[in-house]
C-alpha cells in the first residue's frame, strides 16, 4: 500500500472494477447530487478554480479556466469530450483508471458537463482498449438506470447522454482539435485556433476537451473541498495527486497514484522498485515519448508541471520510461522518431517532410554511416519543428534535441567507430 492518500485509486482492486454500489457506499455520486441541488455552474467553476486543478492530458492547463472560456451566450447544444486516446508511448494511466474506478470518471463528466451546460458528452477511447470501452458502456448504462445520467438527472433540470466513441487508432487523434475532427467523421487533422473549441468545436458548438484523469478529480474536489485537494500535493502550484506510469528497465513497472511533486527518484527507486538487477539508471523520458531525456544528475527533481519547467523539462503525461546503461540512446531516439514520423498526420510540411529526414539521419548514425556534419543539421531541424501546425512535431523533436544536449558523446562514438557501440 502506498503511504500517500489514494484518491482516484482509493478503491482499486486487483482484478475487477469498483462497482456502482461500492462507489456509492464510499460517497460516490454525492458530489453530483450536491452540485445539481446547490451549485450554479459558476459555483462549480469557482470551486475547481480555487482547488487549482490542472489538466492531466499533458499541458497542465487550468481546468476551470478552460470551462470558463465557454461564452456565457454560447450556442446550444454544447459538448464535453473526455479524452482517453492515450497513444503516447509509455502512457497507460487512463486504462488503469477505467479498470479501477469507472464511476468517478462518469461522475466527473456529469459535473463538468453541468458546469458548461453540455447535454451530450463523448468519451474518446483508443482502439485496443476495447475492454475499457466495454466497461464504460456497461457502467454508463448502470448509472443511467440509477438516475445519475439521462433525462432530468436526480430530479433536476439537467440532462446528459454519454457516448463512448472507439477510435480507429492514430496518435494525432489525441490532440484536442484533431480529436474533434475524428469525432465528426472527418480526417483527423488538427485545427489551428482561434476560434478555440470552447467557442466553436464539434459542429461549430462550444466544446470542452479534457483528459479523463482531469475529470475524475472533479467529484473529489466538490466532495472534500479545495483546501483538501491542495493538501494532497507536495508543491504549491500543482495541487492534487497524479497518476504516474513507470515502464522500461525497472523491477515493478506500473501505474501509481502519488502526490504531485513527488521526487522523480522516489517514484523510480521506491514505487517502481528501482532498476532491474544488473541495470543502472542512464536516462529517462519523464512524461512520455514527446518529452526530453532526463539524466541522473536531475533525478531529484519533483514531478509537477512547474518544477519540471524550472529545469527546462516537461512533465507531460507523467509516463516515465527508464533506460539503463546497456541501452543505446541513439537507437532509442531513432525508434521514437520512427513513431512520430509514422503517426504524423501529414498536414504540414515541417512535420511530414522533416520527421522522416531526421529519422534518416539518425538511422545513418545508428548504422555506422553517420557524419559529423549531421549533428548541426539535426540541431537546426529540431528548431524548425516549432514552425509546424500542431504540437506533435515539437514533441517529436524533444527527445532528439535532448539526445544531442546530454548524450552528444554517445552520438560521436557512433560516428567515429562507424557502428553502434552497443552492438
Amino acid at each position, binding site marked *: 500500500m502506498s503511504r500517500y492518500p489514494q484518491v482516484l485509486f482509493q478503491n482499486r482492486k486487483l482484478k475487477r472494477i469498483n462497482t456502482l454500489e461500492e462507489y456509492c457506499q464510499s460517497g460516490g455520486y454525492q458530489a453530483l447530487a450536491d452540485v445539481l441541488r446547490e451549485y450554479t455552474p459558476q459555483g462549480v467553476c469557482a470551486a475547481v478554480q480555487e482547488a487549482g486543478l490542472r489538466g492531466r492530458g499533458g499541458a497542465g492547463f487550468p481546468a476551470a479556466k478552460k470551462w470558463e472560456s465557454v461564452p456565457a451566450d454560447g450556442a446550444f447544444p454544447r459538448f464535453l469530450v473526455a479524452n482517453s486516446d492515450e497513444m503516447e508511448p509509455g502512457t497507460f494511466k487512463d486504462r488503469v483508471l477505467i479498470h479501477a474506478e469507472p464511476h468517478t470518471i462518469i461522475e466527473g463528466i456529469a459535473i463538468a458537463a453541468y458546469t458548461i451546460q453540455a447535454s451530450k458528452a463523448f468519451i474518446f477511447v483508443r482502439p*485496443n482498449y476495447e475492454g475499457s470501452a466495454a466497461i464504460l458502456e456497461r457502467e454508463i448504462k448502470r448509472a443511467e438506470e440509477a438516475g445519475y445520467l439521462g433525462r432530468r438527472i436526480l430530479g433536476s433540470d439537467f440532462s446528459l447522454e454519454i457516448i463512448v466513441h472507439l*477510435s480507429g*487508432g492514430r496518435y494525432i487523434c489525441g490532440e484536442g482539435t484533431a480529436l474533434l475532427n475524428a469525432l465528426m467523421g472527418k480526417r483527423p487533422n488538427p485545427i489551428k485556433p482561434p476560434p478555440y473549441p470552447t467557442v466553436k468545436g464539434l459542429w461549430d458548438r462550444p466544446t470542452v476537451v479534457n483528459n479523463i484523469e482531469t475529470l475524475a478529480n472533479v467529484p473529489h474536489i466538490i466532495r472534500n473541498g479545495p483546501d483538501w485537494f491542495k493538501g494532497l500535493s507536495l508543491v504549491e502550484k500543482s495541487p492534487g495527486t497524479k497518476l504516474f506510469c513507470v515502464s522500461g528497465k525497472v523491477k515493478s513497472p506500473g501505474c501509481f497514484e502519488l502526490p504531485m511533486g513527488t521526487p522523480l527518484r522516489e517514484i523510480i527507486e521506491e514505487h517502481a522498485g528501482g532498476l532491474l538487477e544488473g541495470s543502472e539508471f542512464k536516462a529517462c523520458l519523464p512524461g512520455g*515519448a514527446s518529452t526530453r531525456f532526463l539524466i541522473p544528475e536531475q533525478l531529484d527533481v519533483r514531478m509537477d508541471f512547474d518544477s519540471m519547467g524550472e529545469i527546462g523539462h516537461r512533465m507531460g503525461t507523467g509516463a516515465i520510461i527508464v533506460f539503463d546503461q546497456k541501452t543505446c540512446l541513439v537507437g532509442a531516439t531513432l525508434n521514437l522518431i520512427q513513431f512520430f514520423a509514422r503517426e504524423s498526420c501529414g498536414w504540414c510540411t515541417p512535420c511530414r517532410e522533416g520527421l522522416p529526414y531526421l529519422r534518416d539521419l539518425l538511422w545513418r548514425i545508428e548504422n555506422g554511416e553517420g557524419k559529423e556534419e549531421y549533428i548541426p543539421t539535426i540541431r537546426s531541424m529540431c528548431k524548425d519543428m516549432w514552425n509546424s501546425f500542431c504540437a506533435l512535431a515539437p514533441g517529436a523533436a524533444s527527445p532528439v534535441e535532448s539526445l544531442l544536449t546530454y548524450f552528444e558523446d554517445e552520438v560521436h562514438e557512433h560516428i567515429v567507430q562507424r557502428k553502434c557501440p552497443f552492438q
Partner: protein
Amino acid sequence: MLPAEIKETLLQRIAHAIHPREQAIDVMTIMQSHYGYMSDEAMEEAGGLLDMTPLELEELATFYNFIYRRPVGRYVLHICDSTVCWMNGHESLLQHLCTLLQVEMGGTSPDGLFTLLPVCCLGYCDHSPAMIINQVIYGDLTREKIDSVIHKLREQAHAS
C-alpha cells in the same frame, strides 16, 4: 451484401448520430469484422449508408491503423514496436514471429491464417513486450509464450 441484421444495426447507429458520417469508423469496423477487410465494394456499400462518397470514406479508411483496405488473415497480429517494447527485445521477437509464421512484416502466412503488422504503443508498457491479436492483448512476451499462443490459434482454426 451485408446480412439484414448487421445492416439494421448499422442503420440504427446512423439514425442515432447527429450526422451520419460521425459513425464512419464504427460502420467500417463492424463491416470489417463481417467481411474481414474493407474491399472496394464494401467501401461503396459503407459510403451509401453514411451518405459519403467513397473518396471521403477513403480519406478515413487509409488514415487509421485498424481499418484494413487489403485482405488480411483470419488472425491479424499487431506487434508493438514503440520505445518500451523496443528496449525489451521487440526486434528478436519479431524475427521469431516471422520465422514461425513464414511471413515478412506486412504479409500474410502461406496458410492464410496470420497477417503480421506493426503497431505503435498499445498502452500495455507495464507488460512489455506486447502484441494484440484480434482485439486480445498478449503481454510479457517471450519466444515460448509466442509459440504457445500461435500454437493455440492454429488449433482453434483447424478445429472450426
